[in-house]
């Protein structure tokens, strides 16, 4: 690093592992004073872990952190503030029922003989806000003001806490409208002029281009690279975020080809004008048995929401679903399972595994719930099923009686897959089935999906990795901004897909 001296903050070789997942793997990051540096990546890329390490919430397993050239150890969030690293989180962590000035000055109230000098305090708070071009009555309760103003108060507090040199903004614009976002950007530009280093985390790529000097892309815990924002076309940025890796996938292509021959003529599942306000715009969808339908789209494009509508997590406001020529009347996971629909959700921990239950109990759960609680599977049946899928999916566990929380991410994913396969589904919806699991397990799961389609199952495959979608799908639908914007049935390359995902803007 030639100009290491100008680096305000420098992270080198940061790694951090959580049980079952390598959250960060040898990541470098640096921040200069007077720059806005964006960090982008899909879910699970490691953005939040990186921030937590900078702010002292988590400790890195390996790697060094330098602040203005000196190696430091960030012991706690408080310590980070003392070092001049201030953070404004996505969820505003202020006290709504206190006044604005109390919030800004909390813990550092000007005192005289032990008593707070209110006048002085209001004055200081007012000055801190005026510095950000905000002038409001600081004696009012914080909750009286809009989210945008509350955010300004949070920034004022963050800057006021110490002689802040680094400001970290974690998804600050997610609850702001366009105008409020512009105002925030003005403040950010002003602070940048004053020499602050700003780390800006967002999933709005347009905003990255509007404000960030440099952009660091993370994917699956690894550093893809740090780029001058203006020299990086948006399309290329997307491709870096979702990644592409070269594979030897001959035999996979072979399976795909044979499976492709089995696709039925009549759709197994038909959705007409299905939609829910705020979740997904109305859409039509046909799913045929024997095919793998891929969904491509960025986070928030509606890919997960569509899957959840089809599985009955939400009740739609409009439209109908027809499954095997039977109109669906009852929208719930329970009735969906009864119809032969299965859904591996995106969030494995919160919506998938029951972590204290054993592998066996996790595998039989959906089948048992479909049978009803009265007709309990005997112990022997349970073990037979569990052992069958442990062998079939190559789940590595000491025994079927191991608590599922002790398994690695990839094996947990296979357990959930086993849970659904045990219900003998006709339609299998997989939302990010390979996220955060190692390469070997990834390839195995992709192969299993293709084999299942070969046996006549209809699969809906959602992934943020384009290359994976391309490799496993017979047909691909692209989603953007809660709409289905394109469909590809023939051979298609990543470039075309990405253009469809990014929209006309690029």
């Amino acid at each position, binding site marked *: 690093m030639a100009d290491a001296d100008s680096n305000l903050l420098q992270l080198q070789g940061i790694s951090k592992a959580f049980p079952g997942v390598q959250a960060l793997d040898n990541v470098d990051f640096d921040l200069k004073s007077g720059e806005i540096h964006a960090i982008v990546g899909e879910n699970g890329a490691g953005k939040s872990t990186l921030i937590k390490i900078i702010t002292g919430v988590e400790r890195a397993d390996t790697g060094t952190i330098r602040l203005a050239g000196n190696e430091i150890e960030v012991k706690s969030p408080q310590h980070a503030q003392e070092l001049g690293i201030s953070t404004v989180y996505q969820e505003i962590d202020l006290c709504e029922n206190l006044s604005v000035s109390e919030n800004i000055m909390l813990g550092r109230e000007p005192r005289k003989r032990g008593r707070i000098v209110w006048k002085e305090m209001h004055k200081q708070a007012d000055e801190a806000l005026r510095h950000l071009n905000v002038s409001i009555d600081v004696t009012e309760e914080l909750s009286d003001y809009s989210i945008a103003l509350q955010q300004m108060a949070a920034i004022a507090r963050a800057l006021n806490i110490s002689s802040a040199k680094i400001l970290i903004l974690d998804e600050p614009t997610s609850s702001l409208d366009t105008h409020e976002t512009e105002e925030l950007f003005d403040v950010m530009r002003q602070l940048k002029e004053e020499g602050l280093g700003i780390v800006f985390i967002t999933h709005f790529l347009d905003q990255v281009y509007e404000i960030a000097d440099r952009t660091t892309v993370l994917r699956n815990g690894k550093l893809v690279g740090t780029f001058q924002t203006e020299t990086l076309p948006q399309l290329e940025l997307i491709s870096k975020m979702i990644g592409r890796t070269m594979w030897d996938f001959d035999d996979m292509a072979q399976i795909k080809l044979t499976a492709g021959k089995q696709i039925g003529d009549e759709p197994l599942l038909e959705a007409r004008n299905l939609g829910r306000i705020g979740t997904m715009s109305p859409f039509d969808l046909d799913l045929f048995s024997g095919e793998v339908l891929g969904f491509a789209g960025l986070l928030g494009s509606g890919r997960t929401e569509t899957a959840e509508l089809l599985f009955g997590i939400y009740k739609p406001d409009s439209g109908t679903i027809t499954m095997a020529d039977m109109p669906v009347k009852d929208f719930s*996971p*329970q009735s969906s399972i009864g119809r032969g629909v299965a859904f591996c959700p995106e969030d494995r921990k*919160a919506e998938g595994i029951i972590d*204290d239950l054993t592998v066996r109990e996790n595998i039989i*759960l959906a089948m048992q719930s479909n049978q009803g609680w009265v007709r309990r599977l005997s112990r022997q049946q349970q073990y037979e099923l569990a052992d069958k899928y442990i062998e079939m999916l190559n789940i590595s566990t000491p025994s079927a009686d191991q608590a599922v929380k002790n398994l690695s991410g990839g094996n947990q994913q296979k357990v959930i897959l086993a849970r659904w396969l045990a219900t003998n589904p006709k339609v299998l919806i997989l939302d990010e089935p390979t996220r955060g699991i190692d390469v070997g397990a990834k390839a195995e799961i992709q192969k299993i999906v293709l084999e299942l389609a070969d046996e006549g199952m209809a699969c809906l495959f959602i992934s943020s990795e384009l290359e994976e979608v391309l490799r496993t799908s017979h047909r691909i639908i692209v989603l953007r901004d809660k709409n289905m914007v394109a469909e590809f049935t023939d051979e298609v390359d990543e470039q075309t897909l990405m253009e469809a995902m990014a929209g006309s803007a690029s």
Partner: protein
Amino acid sequence: MNDSTFSWHRLRDSQLFWPLLALALIMLFNLIFTPNFYNIEIKDGHLSGFLIDILNRGSILMLVAIGMTMVIATGGVDLSVGAVVAISAATATVLINPALANQLISSEELIQDVTRTPLWLCVLAALTVSTICGIWNGLLVSRARIQPMVATLVLMVAGRGIAQLITNGQIITVYYSPYFFIGNGYLLGLPFSLYIVAIVFLIVWLFARRTAFGLFVESVGINARSSFFSGINEQNIKLIVYTLCGFCAGVAGLIYSSNVKSADANNAGLDLELDAILAVVIGGTLMSGGRFSLLASVIGALFIQSVTTTMYAVGVPAMAAMAIKGVVVLIVVLLYSDQTKNVLTHMIERVGVGS
């Protein structure tokens, strides 16, 4: 890892181990400090002694703890069980005793050994009313989505009012001897209430463990959202466990009122909910929900009753009893903390290596 440490781990991880250890400690204490504690003699054709007393008096707590276990396993709690005991007791006794609604009855008529209503109907009515109380709680928690502690607080407060309405604000005394048998009778030398506990336990255990119901309860308690995604009807599971809890409290109310031959709306089952929660916690079921063991909860209930009886036996003054009970509970709960368990494990493993 050698065999001895391996079996120690298995022992330590069993949900029965810690409540049994607690019970063993209190029994050891009695072996040393309480003379006659283990004496069992035959009086009037049945067994009698401190141990029998614990089983007899503990029956109410055991029943309520059985019901409470699965409620807690879903991540909830039922604070109204004490009030439901009072409602159940009031319902049964008011049907037996003719002194309903301030009718003026001569005292000779009052103390006659008769019942106004057939005994089976009294029992059925009390159980029905308490089961309805359970359904009420279940609906508030599962359908209205009120936090369990708040939802059941409603009936905890209102329930005693309902019991008072039933008894018309009076302490109803019963003189009907067949009814006394429920809480005072003996069968084959053992208290009849113990048989009731055994039957209820068996029914609930079969219901939980011979169907998939217990698995669903644990699943909902560990991760309600994942369970929903797996097609488990979380609302119905919760409704059923609260209903069951109300039913168990109803049975306990029958035993209680039969035992004391009266129903006092203000004092029947007072503070019982706290002892029941404690019994379940000592039985190793987490308040946050998840894995549960009915047997461990029953042992937990026996432990609490043993502490109470022991204090009578060694002659602790009544005013000090609550404080001492608190200390004992504190010790047990400390034993349960992961911190203590780790220190203990460490010590045992070191001894194991040394020997």
